[in-house]
């Protein structure tokens, strides 16, 4: 029987594993998290009494359903939580499990690796008290903690309003929800967004709730600076009319939508292409998630689509795998899933246009802004390195000369902004700047995990 490994225990991975098990396959489900659920359906730490039904709001039913399904699935699979996959080579995963390096062979691999926050730097963004939006939600769902008492939400993402609503529910004062994209761009994207009226309505209701509660909701802002003496004290913006705005706060949640975790897919043989709507390098797959022989991608790691799309794409990837193994699948069900996925991802593409990545703002950032916090590289260092004789124009070469993207996160945080800075300084399209190549380990691994020498 084929060895099947699914990486990621969010809605995509769980759904894929469930469907494969239902066809009698043995599945190993590997997850970096301590508990299943992924980021969106994350469970609180054991022993923590958190009202998840209230926190999840309209999504509470789906949250409960997914965890109930996982509980039923658990006895049928080889589930390995807290397991980091750090390399893929020749149909073998290299993992670190319980502090020890090990390998896991596979014939077919389903990657449901999810996504992380996409971040744009601006002056002061490395000051303690500035969190990513996803980080702010992890603090909430995993630990029941707020990142501050008076929080500003900044960036360009529908999740700003969602997270702000969750924070407000737990007693946090929301000082502002500030979006860099002009309101007109959002109106222009409405036809695409109307393909998922329920989700659109949910997003609008979060915003409406915030406005009714008197939270300032701003569109078309330009982030100016985070000020504070050793910790966030205020967020300074320019509003759409160019007026300076000052928001006293003790924390900022920063998010520009999501960025797929594509490292393992690339190591496993997926080809990446630059997507103009998301302005990200995304893996190439067919409609069902096939990315290379024996490699299937699902969830936000394949294409940003949100929890419902993740679940749907997990089912499709499992079906594709079953078909490739010679098992018959229900073609009508498959077509329905494809239609549903196309609709959900189309909606996300609309969102990407409505909540645009602020290319112009990033390219115009001043020289003294920190771009790579791991290696402490400022934007001016990139521009100066590129401007000198025989200076680099390709992004990996820029990394080699400046150390930008060379640190602990390996460009996972600074990569998208670096891409714009390089393209801007070279006067070329984003795609032409190239793509930071991946190398294993995809995340840092301690020397001691390698064990004693034989």
């Amino acid at each position, binding site marked *: 029987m084929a060895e099947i490994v699914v990486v990621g225990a969010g809605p995509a991975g769980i759904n894929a594993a469930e469907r494969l098990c239902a066809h009698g396959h043995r599945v190993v489900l590997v997850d970096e998290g301590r508990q299943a659920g992924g980021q969106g359906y994350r469970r609180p730490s054991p022993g923590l009494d958190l009202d998840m039904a209230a926190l999840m709001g309209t999504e509470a039913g789906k949250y409960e359903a997914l965890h109930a399904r996982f509980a039923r699935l658990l006895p049928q699979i080889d589930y390995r939580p807290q397991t980091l996959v*750090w*390399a893929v*080579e020749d149909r073998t995963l*290299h993992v670190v499990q319980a502090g020890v*390096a090990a390998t896991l062979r596979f014939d077919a691999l389903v990657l449901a690796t999810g996504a992380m926050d996409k971040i744009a730097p601006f002056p002061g963004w490395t000051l303690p008290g500035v969190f990513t939006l996803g980080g702010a939600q992890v603090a909430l769902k995993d630990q029941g903690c707020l990142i501050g008492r008076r929080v500003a939400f900044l960036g360009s993402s529908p999740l700003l309003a969602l997270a702000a609503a969750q924070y407000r529910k737990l007693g946090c004062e929301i000082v502002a929800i500030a979006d860099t994209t002009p309101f007109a761009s959002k109106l222009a994207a409405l036809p695409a967004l109307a393909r998922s009226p329920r989700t659109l309505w949910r997003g609008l209701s979060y915003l409406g709730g915030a406005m009714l509660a008197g939270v300032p909701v701003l569109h078309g802002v330009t982030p100016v600076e985070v000020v504070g003496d050793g910790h966030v004290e205020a967020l300074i913006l320019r509003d759409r009319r160019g007026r300076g705005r000052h928001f006293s706060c003790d924390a900022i949640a920063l998010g520009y939508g999501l960025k797929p975790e594509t490292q393992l897919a690339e190591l496993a043989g997926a080809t990446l292409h630059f997507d103009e709507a998301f302005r990200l390098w995304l893996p190439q797959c067919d409609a069902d998630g096939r990315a290379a022989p024996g490699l299937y991608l699902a969830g936000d790691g394949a294409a940003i689509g949100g929890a419902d799309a993740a679940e749907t794409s997990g089912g499709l990837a499992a079906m594709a795998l079953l078909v490739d193994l010679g098992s018959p699948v229900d073609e009508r069900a498959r077509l329905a899933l494809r239609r549903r996925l196309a609709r959900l991802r189309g909606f996300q593409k609309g969102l990407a246009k409505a909540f645009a990545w602020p290319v112009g703002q990033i390219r115009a950032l001043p020289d003294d802004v920190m771009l790579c916090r791991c290696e402490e590289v400022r934007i001016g260092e990139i521009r100066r390195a590129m401007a*000198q*004789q*025989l200076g*680099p124009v*390709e992004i990996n*070469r820029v990394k*080699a*000369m400046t150390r930008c993207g*060379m*640190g*602990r996160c*390996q460009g996972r945080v600074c990569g998208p902004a670096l891409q714009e800075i390089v393209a801007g300084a070279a006067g070329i399209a984003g795609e032409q700047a190239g793509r930071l190549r991946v*190398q*294993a*380990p995809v995340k*840092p*691994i*301690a*020397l*001691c*995990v*390698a*064990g*004693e*020498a034989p």
Partner: protein
Amino acid sequence: MSRHTADVVIVGGGLIGVWTAFFLARRKQRVVLIEKGVVGAQSSGTNFGNLRLQGRFPGQYPLSLRSQALWEEIEALIGEDCEFAQTGHLYLAYDDEERAKLEGYAQVSESHGLAIERLGPSELRKRWPWLSERAVAATFSARDATANPRLVTPAVARAARALGVSIIENACVTDVARSGDGFAVKTADGGHWNCGTLVNAAGAWAVAIAERFGETAPIVPAGPPQFVTEPFPYLIEPSIQAIDGSVIFRQIPRGNIILAGYPRTVADPVNHRAPVPPAKTLAAMRALARVAPILAQCHVIRVWSGIEGYLPDMIPVIGPSLTMPGLFHAFGFCGHGFQIGPGVGLCLSEMIVDGTTPTPLEPFSIGRFRESVAVSEKFRKEFDGA
């Protein structure tokens, strides 16, 4: 098709090519350097960055020492310091057999005027208290140094360009041929140069040029796997190497520890791939933790490699072609070209301009491959799949 003339055309924009261009330009030669990608992209830019004088091939010491003198004045030479730092090199032995080998290397080094310190277990622990008890003996050479390989080649290329060298990147040489009493060089994008002298510094791709003129060498393209950790409080000043070949590492003042592991990995020069297999990453991590247990919790964050040429006797080819007057080879640096790079460039410039160099280069002649060449123990040990 555009036609140009030059005194010297250099094929290959690695460390050897750019240093040769630099020294030729200082001797008023009109030089064109042609690189298929960008300067310093392969092993010249991705190596470990050691300027090691201990444990070299004995016949190479005159060249090595001449080269080190150039490194020691790099900022005055090219205007950039390239993170050159004279941090010394500590060579470790784990048992008596290795101690004897160390002593042999030390004596060779001393016969060429180097100062080598010998250290026993108690002195080792006193000076480097974090060293594992496994190390029973060591030699230390204070003159050994390091530099940042990512920075050096472009910096030398800039200095050469400032002296008038024409540096052409992203131009693949498609043909080299005899033309009159010189050479005609063509590139894929339609460039065409005539020159009196041709320098073959094309690294792992150099044999194709040699073979155009009836010479060859059994080159193996490979990549030296390199690794780096997250920053750790700065405490390791010298480069440290286990003589068993399991690991060499150094720390940069920023705190990151750079390590290289063996064996080397055969690379694919056609698709430009020099992989670092995960098993080698783990082996290098084990080897480092063995020498410096204090680093056990330190994380490896990144690996890299680049393609370079290896020869079975682990000695480079440097010097004139034996079949074609005006052609000079400098390739196959087998993982130790970084230290001798400036010296090779200087010697080649002397041979080209003066017809001779005071540094003995006979051991590096391409002529040795006319006979069957002994495969070195190092080559056997440091390669897999070769």
